[in-house]
């Protein structure tokens, strides 16, 4: 236990060591540690944020898909009903057209019949006039008339 000037030398050495540590060792190492802690905390927060973002996006996507599906279904339904409506309309139109043509044909036939009848009537009148002329020429012969008339009737 003999104290000597080593005490002073050691104190100076210690002051230097502590000063050096305080100046050049502690701050950079501590800054690095704290910066890393911040970075790690940020990273974890970002990861959690990413996770929730992902979950939100998934939910959003599911919602959009469901909406699209509904829309598609309603579009298909619409299309189906429209198709059947078009079909019905076409059918009705075709039916109407058929009816129209049928009636037109029928009218034409009637016209033809009438015309033929008019013609026939004219011919009958001519034949009657001709028959009358012949009868008048031959004067009245009952037997001959009858015979003639019967032949006329047969001609009709």
């Amino acid at each position, binding site marked *: 236990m003999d104290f000597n000037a080593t*005490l002073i030398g*050691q104190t100076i050495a210690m002051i230097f060591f502590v000063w050096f540590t305080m100046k050049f060792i*502690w701050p950079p*190492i501590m*800054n690095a*540690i704290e910066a890393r802690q911040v970075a790690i905390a940020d990273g974890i927060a970002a990861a959690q944020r990413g996770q929730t973002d992902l979950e939100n996006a998934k939910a959003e996507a599911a919602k959009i898909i469901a909406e699209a599906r509904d829309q598609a279904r309603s579009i298909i339904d619409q299309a189906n009903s429209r198709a059947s409506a078009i079909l019905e309309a076409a059918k009705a139109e075709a039916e109407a057209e058929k009816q129209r043509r049928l009636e037109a044909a029928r009218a034409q036939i009637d016209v033809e019949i009438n015309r033929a009848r008019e013609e026939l009537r004219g011919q009958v009148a001519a034949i009657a006039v001709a028959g009358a002329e012949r009868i008048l020429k031959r004067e009245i012969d009952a037997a001959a008339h009858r015979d003639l008339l019967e032949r006329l009737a047969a001609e009709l």
Partner: protein
Amino acid sequence: MADTHGGGHAQTAQDYISHHLQNLQVCRVDGEWVWNQCAGNFWTINVDSMFFSIVLGSLFLWLFHSVAKKATSGPPGKLQTAIEAIVGFVDTAVKDAFHGHNKLIAPLALTIFVWVFLMNFMDLIPVDWLPWAASLAGVDYLKIVPTTDVNVTFAMSLSVFFLIIYYSIKTKGFGGFIGELTLHPLAPPTKGLGLIGAPFVIAFNLILESASLLAKPLSLSLRLFGNMYAGELIFILIALLGFYQLPLHFGWAVFHILIVTLQAFIFMMLTIVYLSQASQQSH
């Protein structure tokens, strides 16, 4: 083993022990440098203590500074991880014990912890190796564990002591510091007849508080010194045993690893606690 020392003359066990416990000293007598003839001269330098403590302190500074220079907040290397573990350990200890903001205390604690640890660690080098090498180089005495030198431990504890006084006065003012020494633990009477007794109460408090204040650096340095000195002494005694020293030396060395670390930790922790008390406003 014993005859490898002391310039060739035969040695008893007691010579061997006291030889190992003798510092390499230099002092100036009548304008000349004198080696190892310095008993009683205050202006003596223990060259071995100074040399090993400064080499070990520089090793600490170099190692930590080389990491600090390249410290990255990205993924750290293996060395940086190790250094950061030590720094983080000290930082946690400081934050647990010291409340308040102080730029000095954490670096001080780190320096004390690592420096004392390294100086204690010299104890684990077998006691004859370096003195034997030194004797070959013509150096008669060599004590390689600086913390077995009372000057080294007192230099540290007295530095801490002055920091305690400095922070006490800084936080509480000079009056507050004096008040802390004189007005506790017994409050002196302030009025009436009891006023006559006040000086005695103050004197009592002063003696008590001064003792407790002075006990801090004393216990701090003597604890470290005593542990390391006793440990070193036991290593020396074991080394005297000849061949049988091997298992004993191993056992004591393993146990000593604990003491080396524990004493460094205790010195650091008590420094923090003392400075924390000194920096607190209320008693």
